[in-house]
């Protein structure tokens, strides 16, 4: 009988000879979505990895595209370099939640009655002051 241990033995022997490589598999669910990392698999080369990827990971859900990337081609941060990711917690201005007040402002303008004076003021003097610059209260 072809035992499991014999199988594992043969596999590790092949790996020692650097026959198999680890490939990372990415797929796209539909044309609008981004590629997402799925899993990794062992294969001797890119072509084989692509063929294996389809039936190993796309069996149950349809996908529109597949990528395979050799793991050794991926450059990773070294553990000590992960210090580069640290930062102070004082950059709230970079988060879109800082613009939450805009909704309220829109509502205010939408509710304003459009009178003749208001409408006339839109066209008007084209060389006038830059309306965007004037009185801006952006953060």
């Amino acid at each position, binding site marked *: 009988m*072809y035992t499991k241990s014999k199988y594992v033995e043969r596999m590790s022997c092949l790996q020692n000879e650097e026959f*198999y490589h680890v490939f990372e598999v990415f797929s796209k669910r539909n044309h609008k979505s981004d590629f997402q990392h799925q899993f990794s698999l062992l294969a*001797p080369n890119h*072509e084989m990895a692509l063929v*294996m990827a389809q*039936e190993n990971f796309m*069996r149950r859900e349809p996908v529109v595209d597949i990528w395979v990337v050799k793991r050794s081609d991926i450059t990773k941060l070294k553990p000590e370099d992960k210090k580069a990711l640290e930062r102070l917690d004082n950059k709230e201005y970079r988060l879109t939640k800082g613009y939450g007040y805009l909704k309220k402002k829109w509502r205010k303008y939408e509710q304003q009655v459009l009178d003749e004076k208001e409408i006339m003021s839109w066209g008007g003097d084209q060389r006038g002051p830059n309306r965007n610059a004037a009185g801006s209260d952006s953060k």
Partner: protein
Amino acid sequence: MDQIATPQEAIQNKQYKMALIELLYQLADDDFILAFRGSEWLGLAPHIEEDIAYASINQATMGHAVMYYELLESLGEGSADELAHERKASERKNAILLELMNGTGSYLENPSYDWAFTVVRHYFYDIYKKLKLESLKQSSYLPLAQAATKIKMEQYYHVMHWKVWFNQLVLSGGEAKTRMQAAIQKVWDEFADVLSYGTYAADFSKYQLIEEENLFKQKWEVEMQQVFQKAGIDYPGPPSARKGNGRTGMHTEDLNQALSILSEVYSLDPQATW
């Protein structure tokens, strides 16, 4: 001739029905027995990813057989389950090549299966099947043309899968190449049987169920010559059918072995509902 849209229409013409049923048995039995042989690799394929991919392919191929058996069912041939499990070897119309065992030993004891033979058998069969489906898409029997259109969707991946294995092993040199060449010889010795339309060949084309046998063979040969050329191997000329013609119900002991195993559970209680 006009297209036949329903089974009710098909059975009006006795000769048409006979030819149609014969063709459907060939298609169903081919996919069925090869999917069974493929399923015997479960847990034994060269590596774990291939094990899963191959198992998936076998499920898909078995699904194709089911579609053909259901077409037979609608023509009054009996239920798909019965057709798959209960028919004797002499009633089966599959090509002999597809029933041959994967190698020596059995699934449970010393399975010393031949991966080279498996790759070559599947690759050559799947190329043939792709061409056959293309022709069946024009079939005068509409339900068959529709089934072929659906099956063809999955066939692209099947061909691609075996093409990768075939080319990588054949072009690798060394032991792989030697074993692949032996496997090619073994498959070529029987492939004429796969190509054979059997005793109803004339009616198949008379009723436009599928394109004419010799035309089909020519088309197939052109495709295979390219396969050999890309693999850097001389084209071996026309294939043979040394073990006989499965389309006429001739089979080897290997088919009996397969049938006794695949119908073992079914035969315990044929009335059971699944």
